């Protein structure tokens, strides 16, 4: 690899042991990925919580702190696994809760801003066209690449932390023009009236193209998608297809036209998605034993506009006796939702509002499912419907209004 003088200094240990160790790890990754050089990054978003890191990850962070590790760019954290206000009631392990506190302490000592959000792009930092960042949580990456025209690969926890300590990441993948061109086209020939519809599109396209470097070009949509609609589309593409980027003609900055988005190449495929395709998605879910006692609005966390919509849907109603309904968001949005009265409406309706977490990441989720006797999980998020399988939920995608109706009626349709 071509190294700058600064990078050679880091490798020589002149900036300390922690950045040296981080750069050595990045160089090993670079060998595998065929990266020729590094690019400086302006912002890092990392996943770091005890559920996914385990004791080994916590030990690693403690080692880093002991080595004097310090972030050299702005670094924020993804959603975590524990909302400390609710952990006891939710039956989360006290020992793991204590470790999560310890883990957060380590991150803060390194200069990480613990925002605990998977919608940093809606609430914390919006990179500009061409800006190189190192983000984790695939939903954040696909949004950065697609909607902002920023440049990031999927940077998992240790890779993002390494970028935070060295201030750079490897130049490969979506940092390079050649991988940002569309590879196939998708004509949207269906009315998309709910966030779940956008997620369903992501499921259809992602499931049939499981390739990080497959870049769909959406076109033919008559309206203007909102930020939340693009959020659900991107999150589902990244989840079902492991995709890192999409174009949306007339909407995303690198797609003024289909031809421009394809970068002069022919598409490998042309797809059309119809209303019948969406209907097939909704019809595809087994209702299992008909259990309708768990409805979740999460994965990604709710924006303020989503919180307002939920407040409208639950106003004057109540979650069915014996059912549970959760909505997750970050601290900033929850504070605004409280100020604006949305949170009060939802809590009066019996919706549990969790802060700083996503439902699928929750510590102790499998025992929680068993203890509550939950079989089905209903959600308007195509992503969470896909991602939570290891905990053995039977998952069902439904539109937002239907989800609210299911939560309040206890009846599954």
């Amino acid at each position, binding site marked *: 690899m071509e190294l700058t003088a600064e990078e050679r200094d880091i490798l020589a240990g002149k900036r300390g042991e922690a950045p040296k160790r981080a750069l050595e*790890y990045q160089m090993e*990754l670079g060998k595998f990925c065929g990266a020729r050089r590094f690019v400086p990054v302006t912002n890092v978003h990392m996943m770091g919580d005890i559920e996914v890191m385990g004791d080994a990850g916590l030990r690693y962070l403690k080692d880093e702190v002991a080595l004097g590790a310090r972030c050299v760019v702005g670094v924020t954290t993804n959603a975590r696994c524990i909302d400390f206000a609710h952990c006891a009631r939710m039956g989360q392990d006290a020992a793991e809760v204590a470790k999560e506190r310890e883990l957060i302490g380590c991150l803060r000592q390194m200069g990480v801003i613990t925002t605990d959000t998977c919608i940093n792009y809606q609430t914390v930092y919006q990179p500009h066209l061409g800006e190189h960042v190192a983000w984790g949580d695939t939903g954040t990456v696909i949004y950065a690449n697609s909607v902002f025209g920023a440049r990031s690969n999927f940077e998992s926890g240790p890779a993002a932390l390494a970028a935070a300590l060295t201030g750079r990441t490897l130049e490969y993948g979506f940092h390079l023009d050649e991988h940002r061109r569309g590879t196939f086209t998708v004509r949207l020939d269906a009315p998309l009236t709910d966030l779940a519809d956008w997620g369903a599109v992501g499921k259809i396209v992602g499931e049939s193209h*499981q390739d990080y470097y497959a870049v769909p070009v959406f076109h033919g949509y008559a309206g203007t998608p909102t930020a939340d609609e693009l959020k659900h589309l991107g999150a589902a593409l990244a989840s079902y297809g*492991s995709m890192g980027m999409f174009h949306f003609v007339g909407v995303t900055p690198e797609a003024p036209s289909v031809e421009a988005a394809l970068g002069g190449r022919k598409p*490998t495929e042309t797809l059309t998605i119809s209303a019948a395709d969406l209907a097939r998605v909704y019809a595809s879910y087994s209702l299992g034993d008909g259990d309708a006692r768990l409805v979740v609005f999460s994965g990604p966390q709710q924006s303020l506009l989503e919180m307002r919509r939920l407040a409208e849907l639950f106003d004057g109603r109540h979650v069915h006796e014996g059912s549970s309904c959760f909505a997750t968001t970050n601290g900033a949005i929850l504070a605004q939702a409280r100020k604006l009265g949305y949170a009060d409406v939802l809590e009066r309706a019996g919706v549990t509002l969790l802060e700083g977490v996503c439902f699928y990441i929750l510590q102790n989720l499998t025992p929680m499912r068993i203890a509550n006797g939950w079989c089905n999980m209903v959600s308007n998020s195509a992503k969470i419907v896909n991602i939570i399988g*290891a905990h053995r939920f039977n998952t069902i995608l439904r539109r937002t209004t239907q989800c609210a109706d299911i939560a309040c009626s206890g009846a599954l349709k």
Partner: protein
Amino acid sequence: MRRHRLQRSSEVSAARTGNGTLAVERAFGVAVEGEAVVSEEGFSPRYDLDRWSGLITKPGHKLEGVSIKDKICFFPTAKGGIAAGWAFNDIRSKGIAPRAFIFGIANPVMIQGAIFAGITITEGWSRDPRGLIHTGDWVRVDPQRMTISIVRRIRLGEGE
């Protein structure tokens, strides 16, 4: 969904191997041997794996109920997801990690996670391993030589 394929997607480079050996395009780690688990479905440690037992637990996964502990795991694709970065290190520490991950198409997270955890990993294969290697075969992964070879085949009635 109407789907028209106008040209074939890119293919991995041609095999440079003989019978019983698979070539890979990229590799990391030490040479390892172990029992193969060959999946027809992609993989994510968050979506599919119980990270406390090492069993694939996602309902309906083609390997549901199968343990990945100490196996050489062949997956055509990667699913999702950012979790593997830390999760591979966690499952290795718990003693339930596979000896190697063999991906047709990976994503950066699988690579980042395996390298961080020190687990052997390869990406890209000269041909579909399902025609060559079967679950239960004993295989050797050699990252230096960029090859995977069959040490011995599973006997009829043995294994899965």
